[in-house]
């Protein structure tokens, strides 16, 4: 598999704004106790040079979405259906409007040459746990340098220079000494900076950041978020920011996709999500968290029940057993289709349209 894959076609439209288009993506895990439908028809566009947040509770499919795009799923996972189109901007030359190549990522061999040239170089990912995703037996410099040597055709000395430069960029003090350190010699914040540096090392078009600050203290978290915002603006990267923390979303993102049980239930730009949410799940999430800085003591409004286990199948809208606006005979029969309620604001709920998903 090499030449025919992805059947590149050159276009000049759509691609200016969208970098990744995910269409009806299904990712299933085949395990001993059954099939877990982690993604159940995820459809959305990732706008170019913006920060898109994906929020939802554990098990909703946030990380699996990113791993599907990266083609980094474990062996037990299969993608029976769906499309992921990557609008690849060729990086050759003078910066003028280069032709855009459409690559269907799902048609690529997960171990093949093509995905390996994309992964790390154009699509990069940083993980939640910097301690377990850095290799304890190699220095920071070796690990970041590896990606640079692989993708940028430079020698070891030059790779180290570039590593030092990028460590400096992510705010590491004394980067020259840092390249010689092992992960266990760094604090949590420093390790996460090293992870970010690794993600950025090849100047990717899209950076998937999977809960990059969840394991960190607030003051460190705030500094890492600030750093990512600055770098994003400077480098014009697209960031897909995966988190369960609505506070972090509000601070970081330009637009938000809310996920529940393997589906996107609402997507909009940042302000409508926080000030005019439509889906009952989005509303419920916002009501269930304490808002720092609200002087009056309001009782929290929790969402009743729990996220169902991924092996069960729920008829109708997956949120209906927990929903405050549940309409019997409707929500428990069909799955609502995704409809547009406002410019760029989509929602999947029978409160807004009777349209049923096909």
């Amino acid at each position, binding site marked *: 598999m090499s030449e025919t894959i992805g059947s590149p076609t050159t276009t000049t439209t759509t691609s200016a704004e969208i970098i990744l288009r995910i269409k009806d993506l299904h990712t299933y895990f085949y395990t001993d106790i059954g099939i877990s439908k982690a993604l159940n028809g995820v459809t959305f566009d990732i706008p170019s040079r913006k920060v898109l947040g994906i929020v939802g*509770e*554990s098990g909703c499919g946030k990380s699996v979405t990113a791993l599907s795009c990266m083609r980094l799923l474990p062996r037990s996972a299969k993608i029976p259906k769906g499309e992921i189109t990557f609008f690849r901007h060729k990086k050759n030359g003078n910066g003028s409007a280069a032709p855009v190549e459409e690559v269907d990522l799902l048609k690529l061999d997960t171990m093949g040459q093509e995905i390996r040239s994309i992964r790390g170089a154009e699509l990069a990912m940083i993980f939640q746990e910097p301690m377990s995703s850095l290799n304890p037996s190699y220095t920071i410099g070796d690990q970041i340098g590896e990606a640079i040597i692989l993708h940028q055709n430079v020698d070891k000395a030059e790779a180290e220079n570039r590593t030092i430069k990028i460590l400096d960029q992510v705010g590491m*003090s004394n980067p020259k000494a840092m390249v010689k350190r092992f992960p266990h010699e760094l*604090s*949590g*914040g*420093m390790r996460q900076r090293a992870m970010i540096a690794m993600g950025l090392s090849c100047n990717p078009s899209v950076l998937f950041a999977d809960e990059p600050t969840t394991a960190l*203290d*607030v*003051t*460190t*978290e*705030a*500094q890492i*978020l*600030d750093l990512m915002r600055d770098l994003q603006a400077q480098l014009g990267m697209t960031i897909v920011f995966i988190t*369960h*923390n*609505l*506070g*972090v*979303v*509000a*601070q970081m993102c330009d637009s938000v996709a809310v996920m529940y049980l393997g589906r996107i239930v609402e997507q909009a730009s*940042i*302000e409508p999500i*926080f000030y005019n949410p439509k889906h009952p799940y989005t509303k*419920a*999430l*916002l009501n*269930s*968290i*304490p*808002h*720092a*800085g*609200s*002087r*009056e*003591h309001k*009782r*929290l*409004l*929790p*969402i009743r029940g*729990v*996220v169902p286990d991924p092996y069960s199948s729920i008829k109708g809208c997956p949120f209906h057993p927990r929903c405050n606006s549940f309409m019997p005979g409707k929500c428990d029969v069909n799955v609502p289709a995704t409809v547009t309620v406002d410019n760029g604001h989509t929602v999947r709920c029978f409160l807004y349209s009777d349209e049923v998903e096909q």
Partner: protein
Amino acid sequence: MIDPVIAQSGDDVLLEVKDLKKYFPVRGGFIKKGVGTVKAVDGLNLFVKKGETLGLVGESGCGKTTAGRTIMRLMEPTGGTIRFNDPKQGWVNLEKMNRQQMRAIRPNMQIIFQDPFSSLDPRMTVFRIVSEPLVINKVASGQELNDRVAELLRVVGLRPEYMSRYPHAFSGGQRQRIGIARALALNPKLIVCDEPVSALDVSIQAQVINLLEDLQHDFKLTYLFVAHDLSVVEHISNRVAVMYVGRLVELAKTDDLYYTPQHPYTEALMAAVPKPDPHMRDRPIKLPGEVASAIKPPSGCYFHPRCRYAKDICSTEDPPLKMVRPEHWSACHFAGELNLRGIVPTN
């Protein structure tokens, strides 16, 4: 140094901690000889009033969990006093109690742990987990024990029919409820909540927070709420204590501490809280360097290497805890003189 916190001891106070220290030896090398000391808690002062929730916050490694456990005497304190206002015995010094004496006090102070997955024995049924304290203290047996466990499960929102199941059959939120039922079994006065919601999903967090608030109201409980999530702590606490490298840096009523902090470290914490409001994007206050080491803390004020207001005195003299305003203590040389920024109110 006159300690203003101690002056608060009175009938409305349940717990008073003075100059609490907990050091751990650091061993290294071939023969595991002691090479240093981690001063996890290094002179902590605080008091908890009856019926209130005192939030204890700080970043990882600041000693807040160790403080909670040392106060419970789950760890032996290295120094200092822990005084508890026992409903039967009156004021007692916990650090002086032997095992037998502690056993008489323990029913009045319980703890809820962070991780609902490791704090329940997987080989015990829910009935055995919740009934154990009742059995050990010979409070109930037979049918009465059964009824009491059923009642406790109902109180925390679980179905009594579940009592013959094992912990693996429950979700994280339900397990945390089992842990809460166990803590409630002996009608305690004080419950140390050690990060009780940080391992839970957002929607489940709210359920458990509401439950803790209801139980506090119904059973007149006092909480020492150890947590790092400042939004949760603001929501649940009447007063908040901030720790940095084993020490108390600030203690005040929640609103005073959040809106008008008197310590530069608290100011930095407040600026760092991620607010769920896209119109309130804040630049964080840059704290240079790393959290000071509890093995080799800096001289003077432990925070001075990272403090943007630090002057010469800060690196030489240890700032005493002083009352800046009524019921507002801060351990900063310039407390009251600095114009520090608190959290921006959202409404």
